[in-house]
């Protein structure tokens, strides 16, 4: 595929970032850095990989998607709205009184399969979904997007053991490896390296990719399972805050709310991008 084939997903990623920036600005939401690091992954998933139908969000034949890093909910809401699961105009209700669009992702929103927020839950739920699909020999896949930080959680590794033991080749874990967690760099908190080796040692087929390279993401996600009879782990090397120069690679923008001049500057950076 040529780079131009990815114009659509690049535009989608940009819109996800711009929506999320406006949503967090309007509602006072946090985690914009974590949304930006995963925006390209979400754009490729919802732009070209996932077999989902906005007209039938609960269709039994759809691919399932579990956003285990539920704090990036603004990004998923934006992707779903852009794909037509609900009106784009609803996005700005995010964080607002009475809205269905909670800060951490909610299954009350059309297209969202699972509510998450507390870390280390998603891979178990996704494994249950994948096991159920195996039992009925259903062809759909289950994708689960994790943060690197939630690989601190023991439950993530409980699920990793289970998925490999049961050969859940219909399960794909994508780790948004932006190397910055809540209040400090991953390397300063609990080192995850050798990260790919850990997943491989747990019995997963592992690939690594530039998590902002749409062609590489689509190629990898289009070739799952990476090995027969194994769950697939795609370690997506990303930049926290990707897309806005002053947010990139900073701990600050995990929690900081984009307001005032910072909001204007961030939006300007996003809107001048091609």
């Amino acid at each position, binding site marked *: 595929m040529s780079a131009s084939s990815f114009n659509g997903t690049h535009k989608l990623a940009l819109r996800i970032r711009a929506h999320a920036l406006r949503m967090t600005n309007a509602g006072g939401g946090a985690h914009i850095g974590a949304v930006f690091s995963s925006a390209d992954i979400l754009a490729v998933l919802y732009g070209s990989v996932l077999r989902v139908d906005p007209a039938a969000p609960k269709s039994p034949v759809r691919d399932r998607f579990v956003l285990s890093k539920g704090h990036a909910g603004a990004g998923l809401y934006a992707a779903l709205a852009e794909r037509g699961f609900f009106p784009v105009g609803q996005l700005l209700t995010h964080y607002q009184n009475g809205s269905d669009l909670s800060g951490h992702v909610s*299954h009350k929103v059309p297209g969202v*399969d*699972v*509510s*998450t*927020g*507390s870390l*280390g*839950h*998603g*891979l*178990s*739920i*996704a*494994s*249950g*979904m*994948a*096991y*159920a*699909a195996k*039992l009925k020999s259903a062809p759909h896949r289950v994708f689960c997007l994790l943060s690197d930080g939630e690989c601190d959680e*023991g*439950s993530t590794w*409980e*699920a990793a*053991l*289970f998925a490999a*033991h049961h050969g859940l080749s219909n399960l794909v874990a994508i780790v948004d490896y932006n190397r910055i967690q809540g209040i400090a760099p991953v390397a300063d908190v609990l080192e995850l390296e050798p990260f790919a080796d850990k997943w491989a040692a747990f019995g997963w087929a592992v690939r690594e990719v530039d998590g902002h390279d749409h062609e590489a993401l689509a190629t990898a996600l289009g070739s799952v399972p990476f090995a027969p009879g194994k769950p697939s782990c795609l370690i997506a090397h990303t930049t926290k805050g990707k897309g806005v120069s002053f947010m990139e690679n900073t701990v600050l923008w995990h929690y900081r709310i984009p307001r005032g001049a910072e909001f204007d500057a961030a939006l300007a950076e996003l809107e001048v991008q091609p």
Partner: protein
Amino acid sequence: MRDAFIRTLTELVPQHPEVILLSGDLGFAVLNDYIDGFPRQFLNVGIAEQNMSGLAAGLALEGHTIFTYSIGSFPTLRCLEQIRNDVCYHGANVKIVCVGGGMSYGPVGFSHHATEDLAILRSLPGIQVFSPCDLWEAAEATRYLVSHRGPAYLRLDKSAAPATVQPGEAFRPGRIRTVREGSDVTLAAAGGILGEAILAADALVQRGIFCRVLSVHTVKPLDLDTLTAAASETGGIVSIEEHAVDGGLGGAIAEALMEAGVFPRFLVRVGLRNTFSSVVGSQQYLRQVYSLDAAAIAQTVFAKLGIAVPAFA
């Protein structure tokens, strides 16, 4: 009770292909018939209760009826957040089964006792909480849960109260069973410790005190009508549970009656009072040590009725 549960589940699964039993690597030998008969409806998920509960939610969201199975507080407290967020918040069709309610595991030690589970589980929105008192109730609660949709907790004790089921009686979830009529005092028990309540009632009747004995096999939803009648028709209520008094059966009864504006002449909660069951001993020994046995219940009644406490035979 464990065997009644497994026997009933094994009997029903042929008509319920959607049922899957997840075990946290417990049930040595006792699950064999089930596993041999229905290997596709069993999964030993390993010693990983958090994953078990999340898996259960994922499987249930795909249309399965899931039973998670472990002992003591492993299937509940170890993975409470998965039960809260993944199971209950999604209304997932997951039944959490605890083998060894209360101090069933006696000398094994407090780590294997479940003495806060009723209080904690019943505070979760949308869940039903069962603590059957005898083998018939355990089997019937299991039968109900196989067809019921939504989150539920089933606490199974090692001890079981003697059978009190009447011919033709139907199990009614959410409704208290009156296992003995009486108007002097109400003894309301959840779990196998109902057996102690019955023994206490036997002893009290020798002193001319007639107890109404209630089997509160469903702690949530609680049967307010039967409790209201007990409050107004008997001289007081003693709640009995092998569990902390805080927030368990006694707490639930107190909340429900107070809020309904119904005031029994007295309410005493028999249970563990701000203590871990750290003494070593059998379930029966521990009931004696922690003042939960028939003698303690009878003496509680004597004290509340202002009767000089006799030596209890």
